[in-house]
Every structure is written in C-alpha cells, then in structure tokens.
C-alpha cells in the first residue's frame, strides 16, 4: 500500500471516528431532559449508535497500523480534528430534532458514497453506519414535526433551531470547490485514489435538493432569502455558508471547542481506573488458570 494513501486514509478515518465520539456530546446534553420516556429511549439509542460508529471506524483505522491509544492521543492534543458542527451548542430540545434531521442528514449525504470507497474496512464500516443513520435522521424529523404541529411556541422553537443549524449543516461539506476559499485540500488526490467520489459542492447541492422539500413538509422556512428552484439547472439555488466562520471553528474558535475537548479528555482520564482494573482482573484470571 502506498504510504501517502495510507496516511490520507488514517487521517480521514480518524477524523471521522473522532466526529462520531465528540458528536455524542451535544445530544447527550438532552438525554436527562428529554420531554418523554419515549424520546429519552430514542435519544439514548441514537447516542449509543454514535459510540458504535466511532468504534467501527477506530477499528477500521487500526487495520492501517495505527493504535487506538495513538488515535485518541492525536484527538486529545488537537493534532487530529473532528467535524466543526459539533462545536455548536444545543440550546433547546428542538436542537436535538434539528441535529437528527440536518446534521445526520448531511452525514448520510457524505457517507453513502463512502460505502463504495477503495479501502474495504472503511467501506464496510460505512455500510453499517449508513443503515443506522437512517433511523437518526427520521427520529429527528419526527421530533421536529411533532413540534411544528404543536403550540405556536413549539413551532417557533423548531424554526429557531432550523435558523441556527442550517448554515453550520451546509458547512459540514467543507470548503467550496472553486473560488478563493478553496483550501489546499485533498479532494483531487482523494478522488483519484477512490477515497472521495464526489466534490464538496456536488454533495452540498445534493443535500439542499433533498432537504428543501422536507422543510416544506415541516412547514418551516429555511433561513435563506435567495433560496429558489432553478428549473434550468434542475437544482435549488442557495446562499453558501460563511466559510470564514467554518475555518475559524476548525481552527478552534467555535462556541464549544474548548468545552467539547475538555469533556472528552476528562471522560478518558476519569475512565482510566476502569480500564486498568479490567486489565488487572484479566491478568489475575489468566495467572490463576495457568497455575491450575
């Protein structure tokens, strides 16, 4: 395997795994405050799925000869990144619905093509993940639908969540393919290697085209005065997200970057005694069986 291909895959899969794990935090924030037992059970299952996604992906990255400890170390010391979307706060219950609908929806748009990427362990992890993401998106849509069919205050809460999550969701597809803000990214190389199959703007457009009709079912208004169907292109025209903001958040200057990472590091540190105790117990049992 060419070294550059291996390195690129490790970086991408690790970033993806870190996003799943960090992504548990914004929604985990609402588990204890979910409005009903049904919603609480659903949210617990969803957050547990995200932990599972992280594990599938860490395991896929490990097949490339990097250890789990190394990967976590890179996350904790900011050498590897995670999706910038998880650096935004979840202020109301409607945010949980908006995340399922928009953030998981955008993730699905990004991930479905990866089920056919050139590296088998990554592609197979993506197959499992995509199956589970579909539940995530639908439960979020349903939660928002319940709010939009509720009281005026509930509908307003749903609209407020859409207003705050729309552009960060569009930014999840990364920098644009053309113009000044094209980052010195890896798109072209990754496409040649079969790791990436569609460009950022193609995927962003696909997401917008899919999501606008859904917003109409919800009876919510996407916060973009220039959003309209372009019959000539066969696509919606829309305002791109603020890429300067995206780069700022990636660099560490989002509303919750410090909090998310501190929480992750604390969870890891606080859990050390459990890992050590389990390993010590296993060693003791092994010694006992060998002695017997």
């Amino acid at each position, binding site marked *: 395997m060419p070294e550059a291909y291996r390195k690129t895959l490790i970086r991408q899969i690790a970033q993806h795994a870190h996003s799943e794990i960090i992504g548990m935090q914004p929604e985990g924030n609402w588990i204890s405050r979910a409005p009903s037992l049904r919603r609480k059970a659903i949210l617990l*299952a969803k957050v*547990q*799925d995200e932990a*599972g996604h992280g*594990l*599938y992906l860490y*395991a896929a990255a*490990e097949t490339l000869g990097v*250890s*789990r*400890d190394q990967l976590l170390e890179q996350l904790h010391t900011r050498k590897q990144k995670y999706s910038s979307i998880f650096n935004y706060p979840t202020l109301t219950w409607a945010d949980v619905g908006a995340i399922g609908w928009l953030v998981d929806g955008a993730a699905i748009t990004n991930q479905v093509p990866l089920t056919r990427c050139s590296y088998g362990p990554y592609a*197979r*992890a993506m197959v499992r993940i995509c199956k*589970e993401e579909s539940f995530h998106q639908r439960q979020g849509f349903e939660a928002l639908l319940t709010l939009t069919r509720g009281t005026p205050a509930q509908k307003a809460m749903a609209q407020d969540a859409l207003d705050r999550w729309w552009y960060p969701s569009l930014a999840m597809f990364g920098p644009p393919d053309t113009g000044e803000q094209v980052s010195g990214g890896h798109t072209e190389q990754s496409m040649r290697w079969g790791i990436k199959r569609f460009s950022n703007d193609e995927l962003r457009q696909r997401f917008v085209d899919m999501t606008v009709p859904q917003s109409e079912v919800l009876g919510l208004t996407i916060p973009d005065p220039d959003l309209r169907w372009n019959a000539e292109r066969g696509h919606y025209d829309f305002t791109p997200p603020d890429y300067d903001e995206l780069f700022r958040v990636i660099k560490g200057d989002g509303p919750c970057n410090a909090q998310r990472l501190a929480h992750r590091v604390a969870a890891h540190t606080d859990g*050390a005694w459990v*890992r*050590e105790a*389990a*390993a010590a*117990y*296993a060693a003791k*049992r*092994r010694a006992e069986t060998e002695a017997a």
Partner: protein
Amino acid sequence: MTSEWPLWEVFIRARRGLSHIHVGSLHAPDAAMAVRNARDVYTRRGEGVSIWVVPSDQITASSPDEKDAFFDPAGDKVYRHPTFYEVPAEAKHL
C-alpha cells in the same frame, strides 16, 4: 498503565442454520468482556443469535503478497465445475 486491551476479531451467526461471519474487531480485557462488548457494538438491532470472539493475534492468514501463486493451483482446473461438461439437452436432471 498505557498498554491497550488486546484486540479481538468478532464473528456473528445471524440466524440458526447460517455460519458465523466476521463482522469486525474490538478491544477488550478478556474473552468474556469481548463477547459482551461485541453484543453491544455489533448486535444492537438483533443482528445475531451467536457470537464468537478470537484473539486477533491467534489468527494465521495467507499472505496477500503471495495471493496469485498461492491460489494458482485451482486456476486451470475448470473441469472441477459442473458447467465444464456438455451433455445433450434431452438428458434431464443432470
């Protein structure tokens, strides 16, 4: 302590009558925990009725680099397949 829990390969039987199939891997301190973790990681939606875990370092694999030479003996033996043989159409149930 910085040493990682050992790695296990996970095999799952989806239903009675099917064989166990490799689904992925995970870290666990011992075999019993590996089985429990495998249940939580790989069968959250009733994907299995039986789980095997095998320490990854106990698996011996054929070498990917020698794939062509290693599997070459079967390459020129088309006569091992039933479709190699031509029989008259009126000979039924063959």
